[in-house]
C-alpha cells in the first residue's frame, strides 16, 4: 500500500514538473532558445506570491491574479528588449545572457528575501485531503495536477485552433520564412515568452504552496524541467506531462526505498531514458 501511495503521490507531483517544463519546452520549441534562468523565474514567481500574501493578505492562490499578468508582461517586454537580440543561429549568446539573468535574479532575491527557506500557507487547503480506499490524496497535490492538465490542455487547444497558435507552430518548424506569412517574428517570439512566463507564474505560485523554497532553489527546478521535457520528447505538450509524471514517480519510488534516494532516482531514470530513447517518448513529427 505504501508503494501504491508513493506512486500516486509521484504522479501528482509530476503535474508540477510538467508545469515547470512547459514554459521551457515552449521557448525552446519556438525559438531554439534555452532559458537557463527558467528555474529562477519560477522561484521569483513564488516570492512574488509570498510578497502579495504578506503585504496585501491575498490568499496564496489568488495572488496569481497579479503574478500571472505581471510575469507575462515582463516576459513579453524582456523578449522584445533583450532576448530578441541574442536569438539566432548561435545558441551560445542566449545561454550566456540567460545565465547572467539567473545570477542576477538569485542575488536580487537573496538581497530582498534573505536565504531563509520560505513556505506559503494556503490555510485549511494545506491539510485537506480525500480518502480513496486506504489512500489519502492531498488537496494541494491534486490541485497541482488538475492545474497542469488544464494548462497543458489549454495550450494544446491554443496551438491547434488559433491563428497565433498556428503561427507559433510554424515558427517552430521554420522560423526563417515566417515573415512571408506577414508575421513579425520578433512579436511572435515575445508572445511565446509571455505565454511561457504565464505558465512559469502558475508553476511558481503552486510550488510556493506545495514546498519550501529559497532564492537558490531555481537551478534544481530547471533541472527537473529539462528532464521532464527530454523524457517526454521536445515539441509534445502531453509528452511533457508524461515526462513529468515519470520523473515524479521515479522520485516517489526512490524516496520510498530510502529518503536520500528521491532526487537521485529521478536522475537515474532520466539517464536511462536518454540512453534508450534519446529522442524522448513522444518526439515531434519531422517532415
Amino acid at each position, binding site marked *: 500500500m505504501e508503494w501504491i501511495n508513493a506512486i500516486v503521490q509521484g504522479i501528482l507531483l509530476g503535474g508540477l514538473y510538467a508545469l515547470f517544463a512547459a514554459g521551457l519546452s515552449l521557448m525552446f520549441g519556438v525559438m531554439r532558445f534555452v532559458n537557463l534562468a527558467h528555474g529562477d523565474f519560477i522561484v521569483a514567481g513564488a516570492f512574488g506570491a509570498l510578497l502579495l500574501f504578506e503585504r496585501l493578505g491575498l490568499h496564496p492562490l489568488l495572488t496569481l491574479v497579479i503574478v500571472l499578468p505581471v510575469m507575462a508582461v515582463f516576459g513579453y517586454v524582456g523578449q522584445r528588449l533583450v532576448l530578441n537580440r541574442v536569438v539566432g543561429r548561435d545558441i551560445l549568446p542566449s545561454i550566456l545572457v540567460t545565465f547572467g539573468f539567473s545570477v542576477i535574479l538569485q542575488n536580487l532575491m537573496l538581497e530582498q528575501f534573505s536565504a531563509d527557506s520560505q513556505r506559503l500557507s494556503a490555510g485549511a487547503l494545506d491539510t485537506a485531503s480525500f480518502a480513496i480506499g486506504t489512500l489519502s490524496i492531498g488537496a494541494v497535490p491534486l490541485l497541482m495536477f488538475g492545474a497542469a492538465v488544464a494548462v497543458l490542455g489549454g495550450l494544446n487547444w491554443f496551438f491547434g485552433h488559433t*491563428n497565433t497558435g*498556428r*503561427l507559433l*507552430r*510554424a515558427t*517552430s*518548424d*521554420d522560423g*526563417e*520564412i*515566417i*515573415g*512571408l*506569412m*506577414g*508575421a*513579425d*517574428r520578433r512579436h511572435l517570439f515575445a508572445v511565446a515568452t509571455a505565454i511561457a512566463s504565464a505558465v512559469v507564474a502558475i508553476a511558481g505560485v503552486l510550488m510556493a504552496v506545495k514546498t519550501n523554497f529559497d532564492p537558490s532553489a531555481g537551478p534544481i527546478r530547471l533541472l527537473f524541467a529539462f528532464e521532464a521535457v527530454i523524457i517526454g520528447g521536445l*515539441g509534445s505538450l502531453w509528452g511533457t506531462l508524461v515526462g513529468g509524471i515519470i520523473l515524479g514517480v521515479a522520485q516517489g519510488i526512490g524516496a520510498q526505498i530510502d529518503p536520500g534516494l528521491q532526487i537521485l532516482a529521478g536522475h537515474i531514470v532520466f539517464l536511462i531514458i536518454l540512453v534508450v530513447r534519446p529522442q524522448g517518448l513522444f518526439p*515531434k*513529427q*519531422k*517532415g
Partner: protein
Amino acid sequence: MTDLLKIDGLDAFYGDFQALFRIDFKMAEAETVALVGANGAGKSTFLKCLTGLLGTRGQSVVYRGTNIAGLPSFQIARQGIAMSPEGRRLFPSLSVRENLMLGANVGRKGQWDLAAVQALFPILEEKRDIPATLLSGGQQQMVAIGRALMSNPALLLLDEVSLGLAPVIVRDIYAALPDIRAGGTAVLLVEQDISMALQVSERMYCFQEGHVSLSGASAEMTRDMISAAYFGRDKEVT
C-alpha cells in the same frame, strides 16, 4: 504602363561573398516575367532580396512607387509580394489546410481564399487534414503556391516550381497559371525549364554569375541567345 517593380543596381551579399552585382530589373503590373540561369547564378538570392529575407538596406527596390529596400519581410508581404520558396518550405507540423490558412495571415483581401485555392487545386481539399509534408512533391508544390496566393499578392514569386517533379505534374501546376494571372497578379517565375519559361512569360531575364546576362521579350528569344547568356560562351548578345 506603370512599373510594379523597378530595381536599379541591386547588390546582394552573403557575408563577404557577393552574390548579385548591379542588377537592373523592371516589371509592369500584371506582367509575367521569367528568370532563368544556371545553378548559383543568383536567381533565388534575387527573390530573397525582393521578399526581404535577405537585407537590401540603403539600396533601391521600388515597388509601386515606394522604396521597400531594407523593410522586414513581414511588411513586404503585407504590401503584396508573396513567394512560393525554393524547396517549398512547407510547415511539417501543420496540415495542408493550416499551411494554406497561414498565407491568409498576411491579411490582404481579394479573390483568393481557402475555397478559391481549393477550387484551383482540388486535391488540396481532399488532403486538407494531412500533414503538408506527407503529400507528394507535386501536391506539396500546390500547397506552397496556394499558401502564397492566400495573401492575395500583387506580385507572386515562384521559385523553381518544377524542380524534381515529373513533366506531367509540372504541366498540371502550370495549368493554374492563367487563373492566377486572370486576377491581375503579376508573376515572376524562376525556372530551370527554359522552354516552359519562355512559353508562359511575356519577358524574360537571364542571370549569369550574379549579373543580368540577357533580357527582353520572351517571344524574340532564340535558343542560341539563351544558351550563350546561360553558359556565358558569348557575352556579346547582351
